[in-house]
């Protein structure tokens, strides 16, 4: 039982970051019907920014909020430079645009920075643990869980209690009708990218605190996890994205812990198989969202 509780805490810590990433992806999907494969580039840019900020002598207390701002600004720039021009285009065009941004950013870092990984320091407490009974708890995991829950609460309040949130939800429900009701599309979409950038920035802080490295593909894995979590939760569902993130984190940790070592290499394969099975029984993901088709 202790072992299971330990694994659940580990899974929630891992899943918290996935939830933040998935929520950012779900927000964009809600207003644009776009699965944003360029979402990971917010992490990549944040990673290189962290490297640079460390090289000029800043520490994590200053760098953490700057990373959030960097991710926010990057998200807005990507929207302005790339997605604005394909708005209203078929979903496939937007999907290809997001792939384009993803590969372009990677290539720019390879060409103008380095293909090599750049290292920067991790916070001193990052691997610190404490014991509660037989449980070995990482301060990092608990910090991730608490900050994630606070961020999710703030996002919930923002979406439920503010005009911005109402506009965003209305646009997510039926973008064209929302526009007819007087909601300004530019502002809503830009705001969605701002929110998505902030969420990615917070995820980036935790991701980078642990990895301590910047590389051209630094954002690839977080992006894939975020997309997977959003798919599990049900594309377009904000609460589903959060649920999907935690479920993905838990499943990964449980599989790594429970699978015999002879087949542990199949962990990722089994995760995808489970997701495929989920879609057989619930094609809409864990939480379904009604979408109005644009015709």
């Amino acid at each position, binding site marked *: 039982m202790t072992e299971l509780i330990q694994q659940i805490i580990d899974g929630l810590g891992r899943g918290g970051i996935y939830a933040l990433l998935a929520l950012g992806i779900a927000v964009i999907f809600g207003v644009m019907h776009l699965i944003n494969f360029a979402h990971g580039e917010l992490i990549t840019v944040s990673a290189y920014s962290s490297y640079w900020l460390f090289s000029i002598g800043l520490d994590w207390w200053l760098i953490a909020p700057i990373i959030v701002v960097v991710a926010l600004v990057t998200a807005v720039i990507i929207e302005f430079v790339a997605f604005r021009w394909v708005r209203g285009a078929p979903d496939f065009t937007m999907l290809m645009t997001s792939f384009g941004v993803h590969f372009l950013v990677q290539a720019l870092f*390879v060409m103008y920075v380095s293909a090599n*990984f750049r290292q920067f320091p991790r916070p001193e407490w990052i691997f610190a643990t404490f014991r509660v009974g037989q449980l070995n708890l990482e301060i990092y995991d608990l910090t991730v869980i608490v900050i994630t829950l606070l961020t999710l609460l703030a996002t919930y309040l923002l979406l439920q209690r503010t005009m911005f949130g109402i506009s965003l939800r209305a646009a997510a429900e039926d973008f064209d009708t929302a526009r007819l009701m007087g909601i300004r599309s530019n502002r809503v979409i830009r705001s969605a990218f701002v929110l998505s950038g902030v969420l990615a920035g917070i995820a980036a802080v935790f991701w980078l605190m642990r990895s301590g490295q910047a590389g051209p593909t630094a954002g690839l894995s977080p992006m894939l996890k975020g997309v997977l979590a959003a798919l599990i939760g049900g594309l377009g569902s904000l609460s589903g994205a959060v649920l999907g993130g935690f479920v993905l984190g838990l499943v990964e940790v449980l599989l790594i812990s429970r699978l015999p070592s002879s087949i542990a290499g199949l962990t990722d394969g089994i995760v995808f198989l489970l997701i495929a099975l989920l879609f057989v029984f619930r094609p809409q993901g864990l939480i379904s969202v009604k979408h109005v088709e644009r015709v």
Partner: protein
Amino acid sequence: MKQVLRTTLFGVIAAPLMYGSAFAGSFDIDAVLATDLNACKPAPSGSALKIGYAADFSDLGGFADKPASEAALYFVDLVNCAGGVDGVPVELVIKNIEGDPEVTQRAGKELMSAGVSAILGPPFPDFGEPLLQVTAGKVPTLFVASTEPTLAAAEAMSFLVAFDDTAQATAAAKFSLDKGWKTAVTFSSPGPYFGYNPQIFTKVFEAGGGKVIADYNFVPIEGMDFSAQVNSMAAAETPDVVYSAMLSFQSAVLKGQLDGAGVETNYLVTDAFEATGGYFTEGVEGFYHTTHSFPAEGSRVKQLADGYAAAKGAELENASFGGLAVDAIAVVIAAYQETGSMEPGTLGKAIAGLDGVAGATGSLSYSGTNGIPGKPVYVHQVVGGAPTLAATVE
């Protein structure tokens, strides 16, 4: 008797003249590395010994091929500045394969069309294999930074420049046994490098009396959370050493989490550690890793790195890969000097029989091998944030 003597004398005197004095000469790598680019000898003339480099500058292989190609260009400049190879200039033609098998094949064809005598290849077999399909045993191919044993085949004129993973993991196991470590835990991922090295380590370590008490799976490059594996290790017997082919920043996370869980052990990793940051990584103090050279004072690798920094005004990003690129060029030059021919097929056959070629990382011998040079494996330990030589395993 007179006739024999006359013929022999004719051979000794005339042959160098017939072959442009090529194969009679010697190539002094130390003198070349010491060459001052600001005081060059008269420029060599005539047909150049052309060497191609199908280099991967993408995010996949760029960590190796970028520093390797920079060092290769610098070394070719030095060779030409020193008067070339017995008066013959050396030319390096680089094509970027962009981490793509099709681009690799196109680059290979273009290099062959450009008339190169040999091709230097990328680090990963995903691109090395497509390159070999194009060269098809017609042009010798030397894989600069690859340790993948399946790429080597002397018959197909395909050669490694570094030791292979079998040698690397065997050296790691022997080193562990020499240290008196009896138990090990490995971290692996199915596949060539991340799976093969732990597999060979286990085989040799256990054959030598050690015991691998567990093998944990991990996701190479991406995995940044080892909580599940660490909790399992914390609940079991503490091993004397943890062996893996993890990248440096992943190794640091694993050590941090194991330290946090109170598991104190030794860490031994492969050359991927150095390739991805190595001792610059925070939290890897005490780590052991296998690699291709040790930049001791007075060594050729150190001379290469220092010379490059002085000439270019910037550090060579990775001296080991730079050294391996120099090794590859030295091998092609040695084969040229042996045969006096720039014809790829002749050079390829000569490479397969070379012995004791002086390279930057050590001496390379291909004779009697299947294209994998017998080279020492260096084991470094990170002490005070810098590499120290812990052992040289022959």
